């Protein structure tokens, strides 16, 4: 082959001292701790129009963001819906998710909720009803309600934070679980704190992220 240029070879050139990690952050090459992923809840207020949900879910799959659950439902305003996302990412990944969501035209506002936000999920658990009394007792323990009963099955509705539902399912498993359906987490900020409202572009791009404590569910 032909071509090629003159000049000092790669070995002859000076080398810089520093290095970046895979997230493009400059690091001390000696001591670099891995960036932990954390689970957090992001709430997005969106225009209630066809295609928003596929825009959001498409964004997550295309950009390989780790998503645990996505729920959507109407709000106090007819034209608006709220999407609640539980994601598990590094801090820079979570920042990217928020920024990319804000770029979608139907998205009105996006906010990452504080770790103390109220988070709830509903699960329907259908178990074998061979021991109905015990099923009722377990349901009671988790504040569950029996919503359907047949000679062979009982279906219990449990509401609560994710861990509570996990624990309830674990407890129900002794009866033999036939089917489960979970809604995924929905959430609201506490007190007068806004979840994600019109006009309030909640957390500022430049503000340092304060949610460094891994959010545990309730």
């Amino acid at each position: 082959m032909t071509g090629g240029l003159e000049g000092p070879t790669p070995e002859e050139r000076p080398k810089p001292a520093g290095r970046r990690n895979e997230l493009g952050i400059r690091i001390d090459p000696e001591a670099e701790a891995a960036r932990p992923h954390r689970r957090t809840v992001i709430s997005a207020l969106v225009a209630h129009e066809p295609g928003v949900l596929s825009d959001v879910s498409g964004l997550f799959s295309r950009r390989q963001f780790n998503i645990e659950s996505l729920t959507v439902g109407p709000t106090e305003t007819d034209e608006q819906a709220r999407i609640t996302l539980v994601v598990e990412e590094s801090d820079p990944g979570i920042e990217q998710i928020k920024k990319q969501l804000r770029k979608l035209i139907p998205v009105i506002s996006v906010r990452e909720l504080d770790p103390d936000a109220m988070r709830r999920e509903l699960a329907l658990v259908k178990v074998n009803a061979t021991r109905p009394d015990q099923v009722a007792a377990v349901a009671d323990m988790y504040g569950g309600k029996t919503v359907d009963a047949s000679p062979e099955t009982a279906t219990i509705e449990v509401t609560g934070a994710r861990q509570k539902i996990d624990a309830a399912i674990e407890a129900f498993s002794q009866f033999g679980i036939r089917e489960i359906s979970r809604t995924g987490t929905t959430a609201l900020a506490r007190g007068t704190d806004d979840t994600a409202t019109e006009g309030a572009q909640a957390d500022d791009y430049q503000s340092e992220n304060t949610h460094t404590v891994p959010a545990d569910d309730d």
Partner: protein
Amino acid sequence: MSERASVPPKTAEPTDDQPTDERTNEEQPTAADTRAETKPVTTGAESVVRALENAGVEYAFGVQGGAIMPVYDALYDSDIHHITMAHEQGASHAADAYGIVSGEPGVCLATSGPGATNLVTGIADADMDSDPMIALTGQVPTDMVGNDAFQETDTTGVTTPITKANIFANESDRVGDDVGEAFALAGTGRPGPTLVDLPKDVTLGETEQEPGEPRTPDTYTVQERADEATVRRAARRIEESSKPVMLLGGGVIKGGATEEVRAFAIEHDIPVVTTMPGIGSFPEDHELAMEMAGMHGTGYANMAVTHCDTLIAVGTRFDDRLTGGIETFAPDAEVIHIDIDPAEISKNIHAEYPLIGDAATVIEQLAEAVEHSPQATKWRAQCQQWKSDYSMAYKTPDDEPLKPEFVVEALDEATSDRAIVTTGVGQHQMWACQYWTYTEPRTWVSSHGLGTMGYGFPAAIGARLAADDDQEVIAIEGDGSFLMTIQELSVAVREEMDITVAVLNNEYIGMVRQWQDAFFEGRHSASEYNWCPEFDKLAEAFGARGFRINDYDEVADTIQAALEYDGPSVIDVHIDPHANVYPMVPSGGDNGQFALTEDQL
């Protein structure tokens, strides 16, 4: 919103029947003047065309077909000049290039199904390069959508990941405003392609609704000015830096910030590197110019980026072809990143100083905040030393065929400083970056992020219509790339367009061949042809003028003759098929360890 942030949609001037004294004779009648006589809209299709007229659209590129026919019928009465392309891909690239050169969104049209899918490559290309463009696609009637009707494709579904925004038009009363909104979004903030899908019943449907001026939706906001405290911190960093570099991306050109960044760099004596889309943002013949960095950037640009202590990056998304391996990209530098899109900040490279805003506005904020220039005399001397150590000078041995570098330099020499260069993708594109000396913004028109072979010639058609008459348009093509969209020659001939094509013909998919030699033991799988058409003859068959160059002594005169021909001309330049592009940083490699020869890879 400042005018520079973006390309604000041209708003129509108020209609005034009596021309005022200020109006000179040279002035063309504006869209508003002609509209004074136009009839009110009666259908959705007419309101689509009216929305384009309101936006000041002069040209549109497309191909007819069933579902878009109502729009074409309305276009029949419009002053918008429609260019019928040979293939919809050509229409999307032409619209894209029109947007790059003019700064206004380019318009392309296609019918549903295959028409729309043929646009896709050009839309994706515009999306990667943030080029302002609007695509209008026909769609089957609303009541047939979802039934797999003839020529039905889920066009909004297909294009969601590759558009800035897309709209499925629902109502004849609103469709004009949908188009206005898409036009406004394409050119506002960070530009990008938008699409409006137009079901036939919506365009045929009756309406009296006149579309308003193009405007972005309420949920769309653009931050113009950067946070003052961060500007002050960044200014201190620049003052204290001893090895500063400015890295200018395509956002500088799109934001109309060329003047401001040039003034800043020169005032503070800061060496300037560009990305590939940033070519033209800084004059490459200036002492401070280090030219393009990245995979095939100059050695001196890559040394400067690798060793700087402060990187002032403007309007760049730190693409991997620029950064090489992230770990080794400017590893000693604190990064000041100016960008209008918050999502680009710290996406790939962490920015210690995130400055969100319009490039020109933020550079002016910085210019005001910086109190003294960095003390960088030694660094500048080092940069000059690298420029001589890693000179781009190439050899022209007598016993080897014509070198492509020589041809690019000859074309540059034969044309003005404002000549526009378009390219395909491959080695020829890299030689066009490296050996043409760009001094003006909007003169480099190429496919950067998507790397689309076939871009060059249709782009030349769009560029030709956006350019001034005294600007030459030169398409530097590869044989493989040109073959992908060569049918558009028929359009250039029909429209009598003065375009000069130089095919750097190596009878190879050259860039692939170069990689095979470096990384696949020279196994030339599907990269060499045993036959290649004669491009000069092919050009003649289309009705263009054909030329051929085999050797050095034919170069200057043939280029002259081709340039003098007032119409499309094609020079089939037979270059050394074994020529390789250097310097080269392999994918994911260390920019500072660029190879100058194959054995260094």
